[in-house]
């Protein structure tokens, strides 16, 4: 069930271009699926009229905590990323459809680019809890983009690329040597659209089921305004409601 909840920011770690926010809810949290997202209110500015859609990065039901990795893209996300500890945030969650969680025969690779690594944390955590052993392939422009890398590494074998070569293999995630060394049975991808399109093409070539998480511009987050549509084999579908996670076979890419 979707809820409107008040949270208190109980932890903030600033990584320069992004920050990691931990929020504690006043009430118990609803069930959340990896890949779902939240709509966060950024108050007191006419420039941030609408809520900001943010991926659910991690959940601790017992502590009633949700966390987000917020990249400072514009005014709203910058203000959000700089929210001081102790401040209240109003959040609507969980929204949309997440990644498939059914066990699969063979290796599962979670591919993240830039801030797109955010939802893969909860995904890897839940997959492990379900007895799966996901591998991760994370890419950034530079080493500092790979926020919480050690925590990701604790969740599964993790491969890294950076565009400047400061960490892992130099280049894009799609150029990593792991693609030549291993076979995969499923890909779960989140990152910039051009990167996801290349991974989707790779998946199609190798005939691997592939899910991608989209981030089209949206207003409501509930499937009402019909602004965030993506062109699919079933027509224009709302990323907020039918997605944000789509099997690439449904997309007209």
């Amino acid at each position, binding site marked *: 069930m*979707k809820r409107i909840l008040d949270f208190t920011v109980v932890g903030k770690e600033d990584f320069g271009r992004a920050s990691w926010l931990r929020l504690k809810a006043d009430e118990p949290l609803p069930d959340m699926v990896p890949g779902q997202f939240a709509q966060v209110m950024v108050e007191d500015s006419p420039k941030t009229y609408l809520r900001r859609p943010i991926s659910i990065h991690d959940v601790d039901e017992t502590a009633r905590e949700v966390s987000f990795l917020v990249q400072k893209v514009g005014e709203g996300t910058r203000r959000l990323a700089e929210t001081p500890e102790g401040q209240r945030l109003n959040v609507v969650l969980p929204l949309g459809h997440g990644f498939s969680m059914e066990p699969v025969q063979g290796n599962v690779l979670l591919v993240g680019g830039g801030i797109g690594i955010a939802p893969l944390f909860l995904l890897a955590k839940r997959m492990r809890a379900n007895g799966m052993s996901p591998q991760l392939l994370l890419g950034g422009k530079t080493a500092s983009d790979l926020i919480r890398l050690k925590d990701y590494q604790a969740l599964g074998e993790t491969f890294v690329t950076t565009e400047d070569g400061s960490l892992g293999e130099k280049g894009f995630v799609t150029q990593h040597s792991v693609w030549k060394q291993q076979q995969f049975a499923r890909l779960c991808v989140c990152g910039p659209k051009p990167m996801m399109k290349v991974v989707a093409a790779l998946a199609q070539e190798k005939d691997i089921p592939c899910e991608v998480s989209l981030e089209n511009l949206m*207003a*409501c987050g509930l499937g*009402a305004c*019909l*602004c965030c*549509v993506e062109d699919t084999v079933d*027509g*224009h579908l709302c990323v907020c409601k039918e997605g944000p996670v789509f099997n690439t076979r449904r997309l007209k890419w």
Partner: protein
Amino acid sequence: MTIDLGRGLVLRNPVMTASGTFGYGEEYTDFVDLARLGGIIVKGTTLHPREGNPYPRMAETPSGMLNCVGLQNKGVPYFVETIYPRIKDFDTNVLLNLSGSTLEDYVKGAEMVDALEKIPAIELNVSCPNVKQGGMAFGVTTSGIAQVVSEVRKVYHKHLMVKLSPNVTNIAEIALAAESAGADSVSLINTLMGMAIDAERRRPKLSVVTGGLSGACVKPVALRMVWQVAKAVHIPVVGLGGISNATDAVEFMLAGASAIEIGTANFIDPAVSVKVVNGIEDYCQRHGFEHVASLTGSLKTDNC
């Protein structure tokens, strides 16, 4: 809190949700008890299915947003067969917002909706700014609006509300034309035509360049138009445009609205509609209004 808008459309309170901002109601049932609302107006529907405009369809603006959705919908027959059975038993008034690009489409659509027992009213959309051959062609002239309203009136026997465009020189004249042609009420305003540019990329932010502006920023314009129209017509006026809280809603009623619609604010607070219902009730108690209908047009302008 009851409001009688005429020809069988009776609201349990003056608060409805605006078309295109509340889906088919189903999208909001986690947040809102629909039985607390005066009504919901479902997504703009045309006789034939429409895929709408390409992405991107929205741009945030100071205290508002632009959209150019372009009436994406599955058509009246799909609504009748698939959506209506799911929503017909909601414990509130479910109004259908009907749009079209030809007179014939409006009339055929209205005939089909007339047969739906649980839809007590149509909100006739002659004011969508985002469709090239859209309803707005009818909604911006007195002759255009008179033509579409009188033709629909011939086949539609329940409450006919006509949603007016603010993108006109004299909205009161348009409202009068709708009234003369048989409208039971008018609702206003639809979105104001606007535009946003990404200077860095030197490109428009919307796929079709222009779009409809909504949200808190349009409220003063909407309020002024409601006031002008309410003075001109003798049918009920339904006010909308940037209403975000109960005080905004009361202001529209003071200006002459018999009921109000909440639009873009539903995106920001999905539970806002019920808060507005409660807030209007509080206002009436604080100011000694026994019936909410007494608020309508009670603006004091004696010293103006």
